[in-house]
């Protein structure tokens, strides 16, 4: 009861009002800062600016409110210091992710909307947050990759440059005339409107394989058309090879026997085949 009588209700009310006003200011300030930053920064940096402003203003209002209620901030900060050490040990991973997040945002290796490949995961970047990067994979799964992993991993940004190269690895029969194969492939590339005329398609005779002459045919496409080209050109190459009698061989083995072997068909009494 004594406690109730000594409690400064007016100060508590003032603190409440300060908290409310502080929250409103933080919300308004973060929105305004976001709007201003959007003009000059990428989406994830805007998000970061908004959060810093929001939590900064909110923290200031909490401190002011506590002061109004008569708390000794010095003691509170001292306690917070000890607590920080304890929490710091416990949340090493989070802190590491947080710092990695800041580096990721600063480095700008990718932005929200890019398609990236991290390890075995490929996906569109949904957001770059302080602790993790969120991806949406092509089969519509949500993947959260911790920033610490992102910093250490090799990241491939598939959408940084506007054009991409598609490398097709083919093998043709040893009977085929390589000049004819090259001409047929060039014609297929010329006919496909999604295949860029320049940079020109690249033809490399990569070597003599076990069963086929190996070659690489590389064509360029605008990245939006990459998948469509990948499907259409392989189909067209198959059709053109069939039309021109060019054979893509199966693995073959030629066996030379030291001594001739007699092969007798099943059920045949006579007439052996040598």
């Amino acid at each position, binding site marked *: 009861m004594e406690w109730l009588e000594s409690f400064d209700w007016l100060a508590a009310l003032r603190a409440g009002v300060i908290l409310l006003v502080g929250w409103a200011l933080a919300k308004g300030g973060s929105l305004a800062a976001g709007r201003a930053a959007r003009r000059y920064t990428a989406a994830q940096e805007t998000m970061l600016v908004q959060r810093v402003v929001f939590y900064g203003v909110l923290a200031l209002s909490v401190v002011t409110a506590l002061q109004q209620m008569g708390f000794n901030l010095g003691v509170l900060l001292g306690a917070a210091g000890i607590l920080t050490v304890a929490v710091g040990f416990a949340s090493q991973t989070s802190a590491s992710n947080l710092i990695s997040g800041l580096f990721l945002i600063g480095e700008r290796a990718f932005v929200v909307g890019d398609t990236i490949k991290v390890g075995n995961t490929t996906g569109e970047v949904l957001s770059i947050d302080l602790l993790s990067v969120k991806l949406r994979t092509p089969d519509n799964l949500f993947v959260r990759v911790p920033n610490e992993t992102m910093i250490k991993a090799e990241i491939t940004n598939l959408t940084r440059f506007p054009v991409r190269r598609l490398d097709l690895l083919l093998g043709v029969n040893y009977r085929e005339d390589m000049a004819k194969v090259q001409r047929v492939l060039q014609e297929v590339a010329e006919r496909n409107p999604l295949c*860029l*005329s*320049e940079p020109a398609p690249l033809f490399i005779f990569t070597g003599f394989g076990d069963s086929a002459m190996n070659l690489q045919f590389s064509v360029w496409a*605008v990245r939006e058309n990459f998948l469509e080209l990948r499907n259409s050109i392989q189909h067209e190459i198959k059709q053109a090879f069939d039309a021109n009698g060019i054979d893509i061989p199966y693995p073959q083995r030629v066996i030379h026997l030291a001594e001739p072997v007699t092969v007798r068909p099943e059920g045949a009494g006579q007439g052996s085949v040598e």
Partner: protein
Amino acid sequence: MQRIQPWWGDFELAEGTAGCWAIGPARLWIAHQPREWRIGYVSGDEGHEERSEVALGLTPEQMPEQARLSRYSFESPSPRLSLLPLLADRPVISRPDVNLFIPPAQSIQLYVSTPLWLQVRTQGLLLQEQAVVRPSDTWSGPTTRPGGLAYAASTMARASLRDFPYSAWRAVTPLRITNRANDMAAVERLHLPVPFLSLYLAAEGTLWTQAVELSRSGDGVLELERLGSEAPVEAADSVLLAEPRRRADRGLLGKAFGTLFGGGGSDDGVA
């Protein structure tokens, strides 16, 4: 005699009828069904450069099955529709038919063919726009980082109009390049920003853009000397068919045409 019959203009298709426009190797089918327009497109094989035939009064059932079809629903469609030709929406890159060098203080004349697009409009609405024959994409920059998207012209630039392959789906741009530098200018490829050009129809039925004159200055930079404001002299008694897709002041035009020898900037040809 008309070299190319016009496939563009205003047409009337009563309900329950269809029309077929054979333009070069492509065929465009339009059917007027109850409360809707159906537009089908069939891309054909190469050849038939000058073909331009319009057949009206067909039945919708005659539309080929392989046609790429789009449907447009209307409460009460008007039987009138118009087809308009226009130039490509990106720069077009073509190459001269033979390796071409311009010695100092010399000037050459080239004729470049660029593919046409078509628009189908009705009741003041644009229903569909597409290339008559889809040209190949190409990249205009010297490497794969700077530059922009362009279309590759399927024909070579020619130095004379003798035996010129006029086409129902390509327009010709007369291009004069003067070399005012002291060294030889090599013309390997021509990056023509057609979205800045107008389309004209000559009396004999051929399609043209205005003439472009460029000069190569001492430091190798190309400058736009003159961009015709009307049809070229080669296109006698011509009429304007389509305004340019993009308008620009002289500075921007100079920049766009300054990339004529390749190394063009962004998708619209402006560095």
